């Protein structure tokens, strides 16, 4: 099971670029030749034209910002709220005994069913989309905080108590940094979820947003617009993911990553 050395970054990027190019060409040819039903997947050239037109006419920006805003704000609030509940559960046993067993069941509830209620309470604007995203990612925040408190090194706990840390100081110097460190890794997987939540929220009811564009385009069989919406979502999510990757290397500089 030889572990070849780290594949050079430039080579990896080259292969990735080649794969993307091959996929696009394949898609274009497949759609033209009829192997792929163009009514449903359209063609890269058509999708590119739509995106270019949206960018040039400035039509895209309010929608892009709305989706980005809903996803990022929802992600932040959801993770923070979830972590706060996690700490509460770990530090107040009474709350823990009630909340802990319910969490894994609640996490499996399809949020879409409660979206009309969210729209009633939070309105039609960004708030209801942020709410939907928050309820989806909150469980990641919760489990990360609970895991961080449960897995924190008992020795560090003893040391901090000896140094005279009050519960608040313990949270600030021990539990929060530990949770943050764990959260970073989970964060990147939840970025995708956050954007899906934002898009679905806009798909159910909205004034603007990429989900709104997709809903309108689908009813007109404008597949290029639909695929453009999907492509933009993926680009946006990938961009946020890249930013988080840089943050992760920066924030967890203290963690020595041992190579398996």
């Amino acid at each position, binding site marked *: 099971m030889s572990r070849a050395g780290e594949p050079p970054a430039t080579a990896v990027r080259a292969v990735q670029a080649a794969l993307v190019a091959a996929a696009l060409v394949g898609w274009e040819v497949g759609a033209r030749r009829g192997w792929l039903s163009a009514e449903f997947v359209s063609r890269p050239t058509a999708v590119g034209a739509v995106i270019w037109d949206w960018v040039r006419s400035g039509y895209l920006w309010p929608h892009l910002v709305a989706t980005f805003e809903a996803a990022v704000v929802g992600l932040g609030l959801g993770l923070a709220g979830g972590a706060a509940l996690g700490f509460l559960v770990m530090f107040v046993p009474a709350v823990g005994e009630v909340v802990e067993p319910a969490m894994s069941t609640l996490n499996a509830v399809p949020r879409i069913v409660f979206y009309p209620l969210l729209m009633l309470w939070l309105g039609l604007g960004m708030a209801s989309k942020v709410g939907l995203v928050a309820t989806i990612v909150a469980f990641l925040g919760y489990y990360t905080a609970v895991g961080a408190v449960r897995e924190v090194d008992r020795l560090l706990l003893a040391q901090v108590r000896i140094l005279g840390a009050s519960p608040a100081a313990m949270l600030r110097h021990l539990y929060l940094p530990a949770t943050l460190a764990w959260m970073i890794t989970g964060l990147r997987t939840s970025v995708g979820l956050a954007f899906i939540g934002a898009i679905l929220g806009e798909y159910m*009811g909205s004034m603007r947003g990429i989900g709104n564009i997709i809903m309108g385009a*689908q009813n007109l*069989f404008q597949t290029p617009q*639909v695929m453009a919406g999907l492509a933009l979502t993926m680009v946006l999510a990938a961009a946020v993911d890249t930013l988080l990757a840089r943050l992760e290397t920066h924030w967890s500089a203290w963690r020595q990553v041992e190579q398996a």
Partner: protein
Amino acid sequence: MKATRWACGFLAILTLAVGTALPATGGQAVPEVRIAVGPPNVVGYLPLYMAKGLGHFAELERRRNLKVTLVDFRGGSEAATALIGGDVDFATVTLTHVIKAHEQGKDLRFLLTFFNAQAMAMIVQADLRDVTSPAQLRGRRVGITSLGSATHMQARHILAAHQVDPDSVQFVPVGGPPTALAAWQRKAVDAMVYLDPLITMLVDGGSARLIYDVRTLEGTVRLYGAAHISSGLLTRPDVITRAPETTQRVVDVFVCTLRWLRSRRTRPEEIARNLPPGLDWSPAVIRANLGGLSADGRVLPDAVNTVITFLKRDGLLDPRFTVPVDRLVEGAFVQRAILGGGCP
């Protein structure tokens, strides 16, 4: 590395935009009128999009300082729910939603109708040679949008009118236009009752034959013995009492648009040209639905009763439920609009 620097730059701009966009959505200087549309871009709401395309909404803002915002919803019930909840002031959904809301104790008012027909049609797979009318659909698979939807009820009415027991047919919910197209191409259904632009697309495309058209007034009357009502404009009673002049202005816009459409009913190309940008209904789609359009939005009382009786017969309304027509329909605004010439 360059890619990641680009990504960070891109995100920096976006976060900047987030900062600027936030306050903008907050402060609403101009009084805003929100209209819920569910689902968006369907031919059933042609008058709404026509009003937007003709610039009536823009005029309303300029002349009357009244900003109209359309809020899109996945389906009619979500749009009606938003109206009931107070997030919007008007909704363009159907009279059926008003009736169902009343049944659940929520008071809505139907102000004007877009169509006197049902804006739907029944088609059959082109290669099913032996099926030339709904009468031959016994035991076949018939596509509808979803169980309990308007298309489902329509299919039952058409089959019943052709002496076919609706229960002898297998109804296949095919969902929104994209999944409906997929179901059709995959021949998952033999026939389908659906809406434009899909109907015109499939018929003109040659993969479907029209076997019953409820988009025309004639087809509707033959089925229901009178006009029928599907989509239109509705609101809450408190909006009427709280802002009667705003309600009047909105109704005026729609009556004016309906009249404009009426005057162009022989020129679908001109209508298509005036649609708002991005809405690419072909003249053929428009022509197929013009016949069913209401001339001025007036709601005919007997049409209301037709809707109620058929809902009860299809088991979608509690037979014991009764509601006076004037609690369902508020025709005064249309009357005033017609007398006042309608156009702002």
